[in-house]
């Protein structure tokens, strides 16, 4: 069956007994197949990444060359600058990292990896994407209404976010808040599917410790999300009422408290970063096992530390509020817990290093991304320790040091993690191999400029550069030529990085159309998704040949075997 540019999702009709859904173009809109829903999330996330990246381009140009008319945007006014940084942050976290890492890869991989034919609630799955898509529309609308997009930062602290007179974006701020709330609902719905499917619908013979770590991580992340988002949903309703009805939930003069919002936000906000981190670690670990041809050094260790990290993540939230006027005694408590949480993550790093040691390393593109994840995230994690110490944070808070820290963590998570997963599972999803040379060019063209963007920002942060400032010319001590030079290095590196993304898109499209056919298991991996067609048909396997599992997912390099891998579904 010849591939055309349009009909890219093969449906292998034939001997399988699964009932087919709608046909034609409607298939893609109304489908309940987890793989199609995953694609919908994936491409929406990719589109949002382009939009979020464009926003970064615009505001970085303004920062490096203040007052300039930015090509492709125009002159940036202060209000627009605020809207750009606010929406860049919100988009990257809520509309790129979560949909790609959790919704797209979770949806795609979990049923395949556990040997199921679909998620347990396919229609709720479809509903979750529809709600998510609605949230995208609402968010985009918020940018074009009168007054412009919300500019109160992704953290949306009141009273700025609560009072239209202050934020001057009456409609925009409410639409932004509604978009975020809708996104939360979409992920609550999706989470139910992931958790229930993993817990219940495993193939016969698949015990808990036979589940690939990436599936575990996505589910643990979903659990974390479901348990932490509740108070913020309540808080967001209260903020929406403050904005639209004039209530005083966050107004101290009327019995409210703005610090309450901060607490509610960060009670969710901190577990949220682990919600996106754990899937990225899961992806990295799985890819490393495959391309080191070696068992994960400590499967149970990784699993238990992921759970421990999740639990601990509920106890650290106020480190975002050290200088917000919280009780100093609480600051002491949160410093201790924050420093503690670096321990399980470090332990996972050790497991990865130990896995690599003595392995038979294959430096494919996905492997490069996985290794880069570890290296870059390490820098991010280590700089977090400075910030976790409340004394040091008095200086660092709201400087670019914080910003560089979280980009050294978020970029590996959202971007490196996504590219790692995409390049690894592309053959399964589209039935073709991506060009490895182009993949490596794209890799280096992303990683090297990335460091040249954010290391200058560490330096600037230590020099006292504040966040969320539209024009540093207004601050003579920050307007020195040396500082501007650093800003320009960062911005030009961003331009280079953006240019190299074109290599990725070219690779993706040409591979899709005429890449080398992939076959079932091009990487010689063990997990169940590699035992079916590429791409898998509706129902994943014929109903009479659903997989049965005999061993764990990482049996590489087993001494008794001639092959250096041992698929999970091969009888002993």
């Amino acid at each position, binding site marked *: 069956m010849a591939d055309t540019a349009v009909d890219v999702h093969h449906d292998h009709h034939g001997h399988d007994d*699964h*009932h*087919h*859904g*709608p046909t034609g173009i409607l298939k893609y809109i*109304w489908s*309940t*197949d987890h793989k199609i829903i995953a694609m919908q999330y994936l491409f929406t996330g990719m589109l949002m990444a382009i939009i979020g990246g464009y926003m970064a381009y615009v505001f970085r140009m303004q920062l490096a060359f203040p007052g300039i008319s930015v090509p492709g945007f125009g002159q940036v006014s202060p209000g627009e600058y605020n809207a750009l940084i606010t929406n860049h942050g919100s988009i990257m976290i809520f509309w790129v990292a979560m949909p790609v890492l959790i919704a797209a890869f979770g949806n795609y991989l979990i*049923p395949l990896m556990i040997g*199921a*034919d*679909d*998620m*347990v*609630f*396919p*229609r709720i799955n479809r509903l979750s994407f529809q709600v998510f898509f609605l949230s995208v529309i609402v968010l985009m609308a918020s940018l074009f209404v009168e007054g412009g997009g919300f500019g109160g930062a992704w953290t949306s602290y009141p009273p700025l976010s609560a009072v239209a007179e202050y934020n001057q974006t009456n409609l925009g701020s409410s639409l932004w808040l509604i978009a975020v709330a809708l996104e939360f609902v979409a992920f*609550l719905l999706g*989470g*139910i599917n992931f*958790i*229930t*499917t993993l*817990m*219940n*619908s*495993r193939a016969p013979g*698949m015990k808990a410790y036979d589940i690939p770590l990436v599936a575990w991580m996505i589910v643990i992340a979903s659990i974390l999300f*479901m*348990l*932490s*988002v*509740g*108070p*913020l*949903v*309540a*808080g967001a*309703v*209260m903020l929406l*009422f403050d904005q639209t*009805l*004039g*209530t*005083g*939930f966050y107004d101290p003069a*009327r*019995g*409210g*408290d703005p610090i*309450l919002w901060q607490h*509610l936000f960060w009670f969710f906000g901190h577990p949220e970063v682990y919600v996106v981190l754990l899937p990225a670690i899961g992806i990295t670990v799985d890819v490393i096992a495959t391309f080191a041809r070696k068992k994960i050094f400590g499967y149970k260790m990784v699993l238990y530390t992921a759970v421990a990290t999740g639990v601990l993540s509920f106890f650290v939230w106020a480190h975002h509020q050290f200088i917000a006027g919280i009780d100093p005694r609480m600051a002491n408590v949160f410093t201790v817990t924050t420093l503690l949480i670096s321990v399980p993550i470090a332990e996972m790093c050790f497991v990865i290093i130990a896995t690599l040691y003595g392995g038979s390393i294959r430096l494919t593109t996905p492997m490069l991304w996985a290794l880069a994840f570890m290296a870059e995230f390490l820098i991010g994690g280590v700089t977090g320790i400075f910030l976790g110490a409340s004394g040091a944070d008095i200086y660092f808070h709201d400087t670019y040091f914080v910003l560089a820290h979280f980009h050294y963590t978020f970029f590996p998570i959202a971007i490196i993690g996504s590219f790692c997963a995409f390049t690894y599972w592309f053959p399964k999803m589209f039935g073709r191999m991506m060009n490895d040379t182009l993949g490596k060019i794209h890799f280096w063209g992303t990683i090297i400029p990335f460091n040249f963007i954010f290391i200058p920002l560490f330096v600037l942060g230590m020099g006292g550069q504040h966040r969320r400032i539209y024009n540093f010319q207004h601050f003579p001590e920050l307007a020195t030529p040396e500082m501007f030079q650093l800003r320009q290095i960062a911005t030009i590196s961003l331009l280079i990085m953006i240019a190299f993304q074109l290599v990725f898109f070219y690779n993706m499209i040409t591979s899709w159309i005429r890449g080398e056919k992939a076959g079932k298991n091009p990487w010689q991996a063990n997990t169940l998704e590699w035992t079916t067609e590429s791409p898998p048909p509706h*129902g994943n396997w014929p*109903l009479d040949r*659903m997989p049965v599992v005999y061993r764990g997912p990482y049996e590489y390099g087993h001494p008794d075997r001639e092959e250096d891998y041992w698929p999970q579904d091969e009888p002993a």
Partner: protein
Amino acid sequence: MANAKPLATLRSATGIPTGRLAVWWVLASEVVIFGGLLGTYIMHRLGHPEWAEAASHTQTWIGAINTFVLLTSSFTAVLAHQAAEKGNGKEAAKLLGFTILGALTFLVIKSFEWANEISHGYTITANTFWSFYYTAAGLHALHVIAGAIIMGVVAVDAYRGRELHRVELIGIYWHFVDVVWIFLFPLLYIAK
């Protein structure tokens, strides 16, 4: 339109049927939503003794009637579950119907209560106590409405002898809605 149920739905590695497992997870997330809102209210209320005056205007007897209505509706819901377990879909549908009637009664009483309070000037912006009152009870009422609608769908199916296991599931959700009110009642009406 819909595909046949996937094979995945029928497996149960935990021993808990998939539908029920999902409902427990939904409840867990609802606990933190309502817990967040009610916890916030409690902290503010304890810190603002001057709200006692505003709070004194909630009408305990209306709240009490509504509590009784919800308790009774929980009772009919669990009887519906009992009937469904025996395979008696028509009986289950009838009992679910009573439960929905209870929900509607609750909502009607609440509308009168709120109309009364608003006409006396106790609006959502009158005082932050009232803001919490309407937000908390309103969020609860939204869950009552949603529950009643889903219950209606389940009842129609049950009447036709289909998907009887869902009677238990909507029942569990309904009992949760009752439990939230069990805590809202003392918070907003008794120990105000």
